[in-house]
């Protein structure tokens, strides 16, 4: 929140939507070593909806991949921390994204590499529900099933919103779990995609021979009452009273700058 506030950045609501998933992944699921970001057997994580990349930088700093002080360079001239997540010179960022519909296919390639190398790592990728408009998502869904990539987990951040409105009013995804099941995936419908214990339980599931899709029913702008389900906060940065109130609601008022 402070990064967006200080640097007049955007996409805070998208970051809040995925923050719980990322917290559970980084704290409890991913086998990674902040001291050795290139560890060959590390689990791979890709944020395919790269516009929420601020959440990756924050999580990596929190995990100790680089000092928290680095976060103040976000969005600044000459720094390496761009609005859409970029891997260059940022330890721990597995892959750069920003254009939608790329990350999941790359993740499938990484999962296939693990299979062929008989390496134990898993690959996790978060895609947006709006991102499921992209044809490549469904090309990937066919491919991963065909290749039996049971070491791949796709998390769909199903907050129901996309850049210009509600998904159902733009390109209705209808019953998303049924769609993924029809592509031959093991699907887990997580009722509250911002609930850590529900997410944790889902992330421990896998079925032999099938890729896993977790539909996380999230709330865009989660945790800040006036941002929740409000398209405006896909774009606007919180200033003044908005910022202070957001920090209070997140229980982070003492960190407000």
């Amino acid at each position, binding site marked *: 929140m402070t990064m967006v506030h200080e640097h007049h950045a955007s996409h805070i609501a998208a970051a809040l939507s995925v923050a719980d998933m990322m917290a559970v992944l980084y704290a409890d699921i991913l086998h990674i070593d902040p001291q050795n970001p290139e560890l060959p057997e590390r689990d791979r994580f890709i944020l395919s909806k790269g516009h929420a990349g601020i959440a990756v930088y924050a999580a990596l700093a929190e995990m100790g991949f680089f000092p928290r002080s680095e976060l103040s360079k976000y969005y600044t001239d000459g720094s390496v921390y761009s609005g859409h997540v970029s891997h260059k010179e940022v330890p721990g960022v597995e892959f750069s994204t920003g254009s939608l519909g*790329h990350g999941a296919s790359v993740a499938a390639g990484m999962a296939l590499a693990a299979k*062929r*190398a008989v390496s134990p790592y898993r690959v996790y990728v978060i895609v947006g529900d709006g991102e499921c408009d992209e044809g490549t998502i469904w090309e990937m869904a066919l491919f991963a099933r065909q290749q039996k990539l049971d070491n791949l987990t796709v998390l769909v951040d199903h907050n129901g919103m996309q850049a210009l409105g509600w998904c159902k009013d733009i390109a209705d995804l209808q019953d998303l779990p049924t769609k993924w099941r029809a592509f031959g995936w093991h699907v887990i419908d997580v009722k509250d995609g911002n609930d850590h214990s529900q997410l944790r339980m889902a992330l421990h599931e896998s079925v032999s021979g099938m890729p896993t899709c977790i539909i996380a029913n999230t709330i865009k702008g989660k945790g800040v009452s006036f941002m929740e389900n409000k398209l405006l906060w896909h774009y606007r940065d919180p200033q003044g009273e908005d910022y202070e109130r957001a920090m209070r609601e997140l229980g982070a008022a003492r960190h407000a700058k």
Partner: protein
Amino acid sequence: MRNRFIKGLEQLAETDSGIFLLTGDLGFSVLDAFAERFPERFINAGISEQNMMSVAAGLALNGNTVYVYSIGNFVTLRCLEQIRNDVCYHSANVKIVVVGGGFAYGQLGMSHHATEDIAVMRALPNMRVYCPADPVEAVAVLHEVNSVEGPCYVRLAKGGEQCIHADAIADINKAIQLKAGDCVNIFTTGTIVSEARLAAKQLADHGVSGGVYSFPAIKPIDTELICQCAWESKLIVTLEEHNRLGGLGGAVAEVISELSAPHARLLRLGLDDEYTSVVGSQQYLRTYYGLNAEKITKRILECWEN
């Protein structure tokens, strides 16, 4: 050319277990031997080039050398952003190998004629671009792209091309002289070199001494040779089965235009910023679009005499 390239790849895959071959459901009968010998490393990704290119990046970033095979336009223009963001930005070790460069697919029509691919691929940072003229160049290109780390684009024609080189090629990144000349030098890339060689003979009949060079590497381009010819001859002609914009002609123009000393005039021959809407064999199309030996000779003589 195609068969020799794939056969060579098969040989490399014997000793390098990190070599993968991905296809977008194309290569009937051409890829069978590779598929049979290395079933775990041959992946038919289906008719989904965008997914295939990103998958290739993911595979490559985990220690593999990934060859992606398809028809020219399908695996370049269709998935350009995947090539740019996923392959090139990440310097992924992906080799894009295509058939159907220029008019090789003749009567199949414009959808199957790759005529802007060189321009588009060479505009991408980190990408190398190769366009071999015969099976000998194709094999040399294979060994080059396999030994360099990072993205490469290899534009093949089809199959059944004649060998123009008797000897092995010393450095595939340099232009190869096929005929020495004084006043005019023809630079070509790909199989259309055959027309350039015929044109050079016809020019000789008109008393004009024309040299011919094959450029299997378009990026990196042989700047040294271009400069030398630009200083020492009167006219440089570029010839390619490709748009005149941005391909070999564009690359040569970029080099020459930055020279300070007086230099040769440049004539760029290729498709004149148009699509191949006329039906015909490769040879018919070369003639129709002014790229056969007779028409090249005529254009060069007109240019020479003015």
